[in-house]
């Protein structure tokens, strides 16, 4: 069964995938910098009428909570990474490295880049976890 991205089901399955990953547990063990919110920009054409946040409460290698949030709530996270739907699709398919994407302007980061780059391996593991979620993209 596939889950539409983004949706509550997808985010919930993603949180479970993160917590099932020994690699992420190891790579993110020193992450104590607070939640990260991934914001998918609104796109009417694929029935995504408003910006949608994927809130990940990450702490020391564990995802303590994963939920969908609105745009306003998303901005409360200390790290907010924003991109168009097509960009997140590239990330989930491992066609776009998220850290390089931020540095190239394909994804927008609000927050401290030096902190993020210290966790390159954790970021890659988070992407690996996303690839394990059976995903249905809204534009397909």
């Amino acid at each position, binding site marked *: 069964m596939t889950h539409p991205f983004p949706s509550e089901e997808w985010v919930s399955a993603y949180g479970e995938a993160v917590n099932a990953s020994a690699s992420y547990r190891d790579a993110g063990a020193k992450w104590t910098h607070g939640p990260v919110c991934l914001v998918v920009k609104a796109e009417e054409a694929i029935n995504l009428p408003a910006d949608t946040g994927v809130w990940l409460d990450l702490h020391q290698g564990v995802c303590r909570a994963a939920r969908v949030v609105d745009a306003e709530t998303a901005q409360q996270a200390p790290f907010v990474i924003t991109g168009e739907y097509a960009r997140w699709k590239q990330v989930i398919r491992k066609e776009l490295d998220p850290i390089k994407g931020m*540095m190239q302007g394909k994804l927008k980061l609000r927050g401290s*880049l030096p902190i993020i780059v210290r966790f390159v391996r954790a970021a890659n593991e988070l992407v690996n976890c996303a690839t394990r979620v059976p995903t249905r993209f809204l534009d397909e």
Partner: protein
Amino acid sequence: MTAPYDPALAFVHWAPTKIVYGNGSVREAALEVEALGGSRAFIVTDTDLASKTDLPERARLALGPRYAGTFSEVEPESAMVIVERGAEAARSAGADCLVSVGGGSAMDTAKAIAILLTLGGTLREHEGYHFLDRSVTPHLAIPTTAGTGSEVTIFAVIRDEERGGKMHLADNHLAPEVAILDPELTLGLPPALTAGTGMDVLTHAIEALQSPMRQPVADALALHAVRLVARHLARAVEAGDDLAARGQMLLASTLAGLAFSNAQVGLVHALAHTVGPRYRIHHGTANALFLPHVIRFNAEQPEVAERYRAVAEALGMEAGPSPGEAARAVAEGCEALARRVALPRRLGTLGVPREALAELAELTLADGAVVYNPRPIADAREVLPLWEAAF
């Protein structure tokens, strides 16, 4: 010849800055401000420049009735509090255009002030990468050093006193609209600073050429920057009043800036960013010190080593047919140039204690430039030998 590109090469080259070059071109400032739609141009400059030179005054005279005021409190490695004070001064003066006069600190401070003038709030609220969704206050940059290339880059680095590090800002909207390159304004730069900033240019160019983001447009710019540094840096240091050499170095700085603004920089910068603020080592001097060591480190990967051949040619170095020989020639060429311009060669002589090296190696991994090193780095243990070699 540059090394072959990936057949699936795809890139965007972003270079929106209008470049005005020539001796005396600072006098074009008023016309350029007018073309930007500005009527109240506000100068951002550094304390030393304002108190010891007439360079900000030349800019003020050039602006004529469009001059709205000056903020001259920028220090080397400008801090957030200075940016916020500068923004307040610019706001009070009714500024609608910023004119930075100085080196990287003045230009980066003006970029950060432009954000606050447009968006309000504190700089902390705007920390990020590619975070702006609209243009900010127009910025005309007038560099008085030939080093950072900040006059054409999308980057600004501001000292973060609260966290004890640096805040890195990057956004396409931060590239100045206009850069006025007037070689006459660089004539007074002392030899040591000319040398350090010149080696900064060389490092920008070489790292851009090795970056995983390398692409033909940036490569062409970077290679020409290497040629210009090889031909003119020593002369600019040894005969500071040689206007031709100064002009060529100013161009080299801008070309390298255009290259690395698109292709990024790598491990040399990560090392220099880590040690510079902590031990007050000039950024270009630190780059010069690490550059040969990083070249040898990167060249241990054959596919990376081959990329140094074009650099060796641009430096005018003879290199044998193997990739390792090209990289070795480049490392030796960089060392020889740094020696010629009398830059320090060892970290230990610059106040860095040996017992700090392990911690510095850890901190290196937190610098964004690490991501763009051609040889991937995942662990501090991989860079510790570089710190020891440079010590």
